[in-house]
């Protein structure tokens, strides 16, 4: 293994749990580092994170810089920035990747400004040119065009969208090094986190996955089973207007001209025929999967995948299959 750090990945964690995007960054970072013939490093800040540091190695990191201290338990951006800048100065990576989460997109610019280096937001792909410079690819103008961006300064920093890159398979036999560094202790940063409140409820316009139902649903109770599916997929429930008007589900779930306009990664339409008023609200979804009895339903013609059949026959096997994949059942 070569000693120089080619790619550094910020291992975002909240409440001691590594964010999923980190494993994806390690997957992509591994590929880039191998092509550069350099090592892949991660930086992990927080408290009581030794096990998590090992996980980062299982997912591809050669070296994990761990700063483990109670003062880093919560995300105080100023503390984080100081500690990250110190590590970056030490390891001098060519490339520094951060997840394009809200935490990442708040932290990365702060770090980039401190390092006076370029930063590209919300990348959906990364590549290298012949000289080994990073090519950063991101959508621009509401995704109407794609832009390729290069950075003249080092490290070349990018935030990368979640659920785009592929993580490696977890391999507990992988070997790597955990390098423990002392924190920079700051008495005051100008930031006090007074409270953290878990967010419940629906935010349909931000959801990555929407499991939506229409007239094909037979009773309001049946939303429960769809909700189980939505929860398994980390998504939220959606509805066409008739069910909302009938009081089966709250208006915050309504998709369409007189409801919410949504743009999830996956929109699953169960028993929705696809009235124009509904299509108006979801036609920009990345992937549309429609389950409908009626092969002539308008929703079929706007879908990427469709099933002609009864949603009640498909929903249970689908939930089972997902549970299997997630290791919840055998």
């Amino acid at each position, binding site marked *: 293994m070569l000693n120089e750090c080619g790619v550094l990945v910020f291992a975002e964690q909240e409440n001691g749990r590594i964010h999923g995007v980190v494993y994806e960054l390690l997957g992509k970072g591994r590929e880039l580092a191998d092509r550069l013939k350099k090592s892949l490093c991660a930086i992990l800040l927080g408290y009581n994170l030794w096990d998590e540091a090992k996980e980062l190695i299982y997912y591809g990191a050669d070296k994990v810089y761990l700063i483990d201290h109670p003062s880093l338990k919560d995300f105080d951006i100023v503390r984080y920035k100081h500690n990250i800048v110190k590590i970056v100065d030490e390891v001098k990576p060519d490339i520094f990747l951060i997840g394009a989460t809200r935490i990442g997109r708040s932290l990365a610019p702060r770090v980039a400004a401190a390092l006076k280096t370029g930063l590209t937001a919300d990348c959906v792909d990364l590549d290298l040119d012949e000289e080994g410079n990073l090519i950063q690819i991101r959508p621009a103008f509401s995704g109407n065009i794609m832009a390729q961006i290069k950075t003249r300064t080092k490290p070349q920093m990018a935030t990368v969208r979640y659920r785009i890159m592929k993580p490696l398979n977890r391999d507990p036999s992988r070997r790597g090094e955990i390098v423990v560094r002392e924190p920079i202790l700051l008495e005051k940063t100008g930031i006090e986190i007074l409270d953290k409140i878990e967010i419940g409820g629906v935010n349909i316009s931000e959801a990555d996955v929407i499991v939506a139902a229409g007239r094909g649903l037979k009773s309001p109770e049946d939303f429960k089973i769809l909700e189980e599916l939505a929860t398994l997929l980390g998504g939220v429930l959606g509805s066409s207007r008739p069910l909302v008007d009938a009081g089966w589900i709250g208006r915050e779930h309504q998709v369409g*001209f*007189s409801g919410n306009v949504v743009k999830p990664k996956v929109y699953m339409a169960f028993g929705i025929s696809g009235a*124009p*008023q509904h299509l108006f609200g979801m036609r920009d979804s990345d992937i549309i999967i429609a389950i409908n009895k009626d092969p*002539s*339903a308008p929703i079929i013609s706007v879908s990427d995948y469709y099933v002609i059949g009864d949603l009640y026959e498909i929903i249970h096997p689908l939930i089972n299959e997902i549970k299997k994949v997630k290791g919840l059942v055998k």
Partner: protein
Amino acid sequence: MSPKIPNAVIDDLRGIVGDKWVIVQRELMESYLKDETPDIIRPKPAEDLILVKPSSTEEVSLILKIANEKRIPVFPVGGRTGLVGGAVPTEPGIIISLERMNKIEVDLENMMAIAEAGATLGDLIKVAENAGLFFPPHPGDEGAQIGGLIATNAGGARAIKYGVMRNYIKGLEVVLPTGDVLSLGGRILKNNVGYDLIQLIIGSEGTLCVITKAVIKLFPKSKYMVTLVVPFNTRSEALRSVPAILRSGVIPLAIEYVQINEILEAARHLNEKWPVHKGFAQLIIILDGMSQEEVLAACEEISRICESNNALDVMLAETPEEQNRILKIRSNIYTALKPNMIDILDVTVPPSCLEKLMDEVDAIGSRYGVYLPAYGHAGDGNLHVHIMKEGIKSMEMVKKIKGEIYEMAVRLGGTITGEHGIGKIRLGDLSMVLSEKHIEILRGIKRVFDPNNILNPRHPL
């Protein structure tokens, strides 16, 4: 007429459009059996219906030919956003949905869109916009389809400056109940050859022919557009400003009248915030023009008039986002009120009589002990009055209230419907505005187009 459609006919239909596009299972056609008319007054759909989705004018023609031969009623439907039950299939027969015929082309040189009947209003707005052009009317729900917009002569908010659907249609392709295809007009602005069948068909509510294609006039996109929101303490102050604005020489796209309770309710319904909380009555005025300077000068003129009528403020929405939000909230008053609504009337009077009409509506409401929320296209004298469930004791009571409002509108020189049309729920009220002779002529026209009365049959027309 046989109540059930023979299997042989169903097979023929499958042969015309393909198996997939003939739907016989009731549960798969639920959404085609109703429109946006409030539940209580919406006519009940018949049993024994089949739904057919043709993809071309030829297919529509073949379907109608068979239906005509076998005397099977045919109900053409669009986006089902109507408010008078016009598209509800009330007899056993064939529903034709034109949703697959949804292509739109723009002829930039002549500023026309050539649209198939199943394209939606939303599609048309977008396509026009992409071509740098503008389709001014905004009859509410953008899921409405071109065929339906024409068949119902839809109006909407932005009708003052450019008019209603009738003013935009320069050509039509239609299929007669006999299966004959007629091509009328075209991409021409003047056409003076005999009786104008295009104008007869616009507003015929699917009773004369099935519209399959239309040539629609577009306008150059205005360079600059603003929306004013002007709050007043009283209705009278707001409505008195309207004729004065229209007389001033400024021609707005729209002047809408709303009252604070309904507009706030619509905003709540959409989880949006209405930007102006002052006053009881508000005017929403949309203006466009070639430059900011020109439009703001017009705004100042309007402002002077409104202020002389004690306007509390004149607020200006300039960003597209703010203007869209205002239009969206305004367009959704109906959806917000619908769950508690029995009927929506759209009586129209000479614009100067609108205040009188509204006061009378209030008086009727208090006589019956019910609240009748009202708002409307003030610049057109077109008022939407809602009969809500609260306080209503019987359908007899609804009928009486309705009757009194209609009578008042007619007495003021107006009519019982300005834009929603007759559909299937206003047929009984026709004699209030049309003479016996008039109705007789209409019947005669219907017979010429549709000798066997198969197309959207309804009585007495």
